[in-house]
């Protein structure tokens, strides 16, 4: 069935965007703008592929991806939080470094057949018509992405720690005066973002296209960054945005194969155009946008000792 087939492709295409965007959302909610998502993602991809290839276990690969992303983001955290370098410049540098470094690390893995993370088989449910293959016969990363959305939402808006994190993102100096450990919280938020991007990278090299090639993230980190703004720093909207982008991307490919007769360049631009339109629609209400934007985003903070 064609709808089912399209949905399956959309899920695979959207999952890495959602996962890395959620990580960046938490980082930004703490007031830190990390433009190194692409770099962390590609480091996660190469680490996951290498670990899975050497151990034969895709789960080990997944964990290696998470670890690589987190460790790599630590570099960013150290530079921007401890040495107080410019966040934008450091983030860009992290992306460039990640793309180059991953190419070096992965050189011997190019062209080798990858290890695929298998889809889960849930007895009974996986065999249901339509919903079975779409919802209950996915790889673990899809379920993780949904759990992450629920978890991040609960953490930010229902838990006390989440409230503190948001306070730090809005006004680090007030939070500091209240005795919150701003720098430590920001370190953790950056590392959570790195871990998520690493996990998204693992999805690329273990599920989406189980192989390693240099630059295989092909700009998905940047899309994730845009999705955070698109979703006005709210997890469910980020999920919706990720799926909208994935759906339009895959939909336009199907439209081309179907011979719909629209120019291919227009169709290729469609996902971006759709995202911009929704972005405008959402940011129409300035008040809600202001409420959700972390007020100190991208601004350095040095606690007075």
């Amino acid at each position: 069935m064609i709808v089912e087939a399209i949905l399956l492709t959309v899920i695979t295409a959207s999952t890495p965007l959602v996962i890395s965007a959620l990580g960046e959302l938490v980082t930004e909610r703490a007031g830190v703008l990390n433009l190194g998502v692409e770099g962390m993602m590609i480091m996660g991809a190469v680490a996951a592929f290498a670990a899975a290839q050497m151990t034969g276990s895709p789960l080990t690969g997944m964990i290696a991806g998470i670890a690589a992303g987190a460790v790599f983001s630590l570099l960013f955290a150290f530079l921007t939080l401890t040495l107080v370098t410019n966040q934008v410049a450091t983030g860009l540098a992290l992306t460039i470094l990640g793309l180059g470094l991953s190419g070096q690390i992965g050189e011997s893995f190019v062209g080798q057949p990858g290890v695929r993370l298998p889809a889960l088989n849930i007895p009974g449910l996986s065999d249901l018509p339509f919903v079975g293959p779409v919802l209950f016969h996915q790889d673990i990363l899809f379920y993780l992405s949904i759990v992450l959305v629920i978890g991040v939402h609960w953490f930010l808006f229902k838990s006390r720690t989440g409230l503190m994190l948001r306070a730090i993102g809005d006004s680090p100096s007030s939070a500091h005066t209240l005795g919150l450990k701003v720098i430590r919280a920001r370190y953790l938020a950056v590392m959570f973002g790195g871990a998520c991007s690493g996990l998204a990278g693992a999805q690329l090299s273990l599920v989406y296209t189980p192989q390693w090639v240099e630059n295989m993230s092909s700009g998905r980190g940047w899309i994730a960054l845009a999705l955070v703004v698109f979703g006005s720093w709210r997890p469910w909207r980020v999920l919706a945005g990720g799926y909208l982008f994935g759906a339009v991307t895959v939909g336009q490919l199907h439209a081309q194969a179907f011979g719909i007769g629209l120019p291919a360049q227009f169709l290729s631009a469609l996902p971006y155009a759709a995202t911009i339109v929704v972005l405008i629609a959402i940011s129409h209400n300035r008040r809600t946008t202001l409420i959700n934007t972390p007020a100190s985003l991208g601004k350095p903070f040095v606690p007075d000792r």
Partner: protein
Amino acid sequence: MKKLALAFAASVATMLSVSGAANAADKTKICFVYVGSKTDGGYSQAHDLGRQELQKHFGDKIETPFLENVPEGPDAERAIERLAREDCKLIFTTSFGFMDATIKVAKKFPKVKFEHATGFKTADNVGTYNSRFYEGRYIAGVIAAKMSKTGTAGYIASFPIPEVVMGINAFEQGAKSVNPNFKMKVIWVNTWFDPGKEADAAKALLDQGVDILTQHTDTTAPMQIAEQRGIKAFGQASDMIAAGPHAQLTSITDTWGVYYIKRTQALFDGKWKSEQSWDGLKDGILTMAPYTNMPDDVKKLAEETEAKIKSGEIHPFTGPLNKQDGTPWLKAGEKADDKTLLGMNFYVEGVDDKLPK
């Protein structure tokens, strides 16, 4: 006496090795610039294999430094100029987008020779070279029409430039020669390199009922999808059999080494001059990877077609042939000239897609 002879031999050997070392300093430098990484699994890797073959052929006589991941644009000019300053005698710039940079640098270094791949601008010290990829695509079309049960192939295309359009047309010509009603679905992904998007396009094509895939993009992702879904596909630029051991029918493989050896030899012989070279299957600049995963009769037909293209008996674009909209292009027996092919911006009759302009 014996001792003396040994000592003599030893001293000769020492002298030889010293003169060997002296030679090392003035090895001729043949240099390369790649747009991608030398292990991209596709286009740039094919050029690097050519470089390695060249190095092996001339051994100690030459050195072959290369620069990889050179972006097209101003950076390319700096990269090429650096090589020219470092005393390279012949520089191969291997991507279309290096064209203007090559011409500019060549003006500054009239004594250095340059060869630019797939371009059309030349100078006294700049030649161009290209490969008749379309000959391979014709063979792929023949095989596809024989192998497909649904009579429809899927084509993952990058950008609507003549090179790619020519490939689609050649594939269609090959397929039509077997099955006049053969259909093709084309998806333009607007990228040379995005494994995810290429995989998505492959899935979209398969979900719409094609049972053969062919690609004009650089990664093995579509081949992997073909393998996973148990259908057949054609590789591109490099042999992709590792990604699709049960899927790959053949791969149109770039084997630039022959050309690099030929031109370096010409340089040594003092016979190098600026040319616009466009070699094909018969010259060995492209090679069909082994015909696999197909019945013997199809394999035989593919081999015969290949032989006929080499001998010139078959030219993929031979009249009578109309353009897609039905306007006549080639008269009966007429063969397309190179200039039209290199600027091809129209589909031939039978292609079921609207060409993006």
